């Protein structure tokens, strides 16, 4: 049961990360265009934030790892994602006025907007590994399964967002839905932890 739950959570984090990354490029377009350097900025920021998130998530898993604490990561990620809908315009406006080179402009804007929520989302994978590993012999197997599940989530998040979500919803609505999903899953794992 715990396996299924933690895997579902890892899947969702993968889904949300890539959905957000695609939205990131779109959000920046009105101010910085949609050239390759805008995507370069977005991907750079996501990779940096995820790498620091992985490092920190692994470190956090050293201290009394539990499903309950895991759910706190989800609450935090939902809380850092939600304000994006409100702050995107003023942040981009400000950066646009300050930096004239759209390459640096898009990089700084992406950093300010996406680094924090992506960092929090990066905490999830290593923490999930710690929750599911029962012995060293099977550690690689467990990690492999989690990578598999979360990367499938990333693939589906990319596909769903670029093929359908942008056709159905406003971008703010998509951010709201992603944030709501994280909140809901945080709640589910919080309840699961309480009922153990």
């Amino acid at each position, binding site marked *: 049961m715990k396996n299924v739950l933690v895997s579902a959570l890892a899947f969702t984090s993968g889904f949300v990360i890539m959905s957000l990354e695609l939205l990131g490029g779109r959000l920046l*377009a*009105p*101010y910085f265009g949609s050239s390759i350097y805008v995507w370069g900025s977005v991907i750079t920021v996501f990779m940096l934030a995820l790498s620091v998130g992985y490092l920190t998530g692994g470190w956090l898993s050293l201290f009394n790892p539990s499903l309950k604490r895991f759910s706190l990561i989800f609450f935090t990620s939902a809380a850092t994602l939600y304000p994006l809908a409100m702050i995107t315009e003023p942040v981009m406006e400000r950066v646009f006025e300050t930096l004239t080179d*759209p390459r640096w402009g898009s990089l700084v804007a992406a950093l300010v907007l996406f680094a924090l929520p992506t960092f929090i989302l990066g905490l999830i994978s290593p923490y999930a590994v710690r929750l599911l590993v029962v012995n060293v012999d099977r550690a690689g197997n467990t990690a492999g399964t989690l990578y598999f599940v979360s990367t499938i989530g990333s693939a589906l998040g990319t596909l769903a967002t670029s*093929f359908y979500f942008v*056709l159905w919803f406003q971008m703010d609505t998509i951010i709201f839905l992603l944030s709501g999903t994280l909140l809901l899953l945080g709640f589910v794992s919080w309840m699961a932890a309480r009922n153990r």
Partner: protein
Amino acid sequence: MKHSATMVLTLTALFITSPLHGRIIHREQSLYQTILVDDTGSRRCLQFSVRRDQRSQSCVDLKHPQRMVFTYTQMMMAGILLAPDPQKILIIGLGGGTLPLALNDLFPEALIDVVEIDGVVVRVAEEYFGFQSGEHIKVFETDGRIFTKRAVMRHDQYDLVILDAFNGDYIPEHLMTREYLQETRTLLGNKGTLVANTFSQSRLYDHESVTYASVFGDYFNFKQYPSSNRIILVSMAGLPTLDLLKARATGWRDRLRAYRIPIHNYPDRMSRNIDWDRDARVLTDQYAPANLLRSSNRHR
């Protein structure tokens, strides 16, 4: 050595034997697209894709360089029926440079700003299409949206703005939204004219139409066989009457003959009728799946 000579011959033969298209005289990969220059007889065309069925972006007749080869390029000149004496002109999207050259001919005193994101397109236009920037024509190599935002910050104004930015597919999505048109409207002040080149097929037609209507209200919708393009014409000073359009067209008639622009036919075809689905969703920065909508057919 012999080998490479054979290869050149083979390649040349391949290009020559292609019946619909002529010889590719230049091919260059830019950051944004593959750029092809293709000669068929005396006609030289610019293409933005390797797909051979792709329509050309721009063509010139090398024997008669003034003549406008494409119907839609001619149609865009209808803008001068709304802006009879533009002093400041902004063109988003250079292509082969046909429009800025013609406008510079007709209005030698006007200052023309051309925005083109792709530096390779600028060089190709200069090298193969006789385009030249200078005192009266300035080229800015940047994204149209970024240029427009900065121009708004500088409080710049234009008498005539022409939106003609296309990539190999269609208009970039961030250049089709309500917010972009609002920014462009700011550049028009209270008397400027806007000319926008769009396509008339696919579901996107409805969405683009309501988006323009949401920003500009009433506008002329201009279509003409055999072109499947639709030219949108907006005037911030209010749309001129048919009589005024006809009078101006008569005035231009002889002058535009060299360009092969049948301007006297245009006023009757510039329609104010709403032939789109008014309930279609407006395109915004928040909702801009334009090129997904384009792939689905109109269902009316």
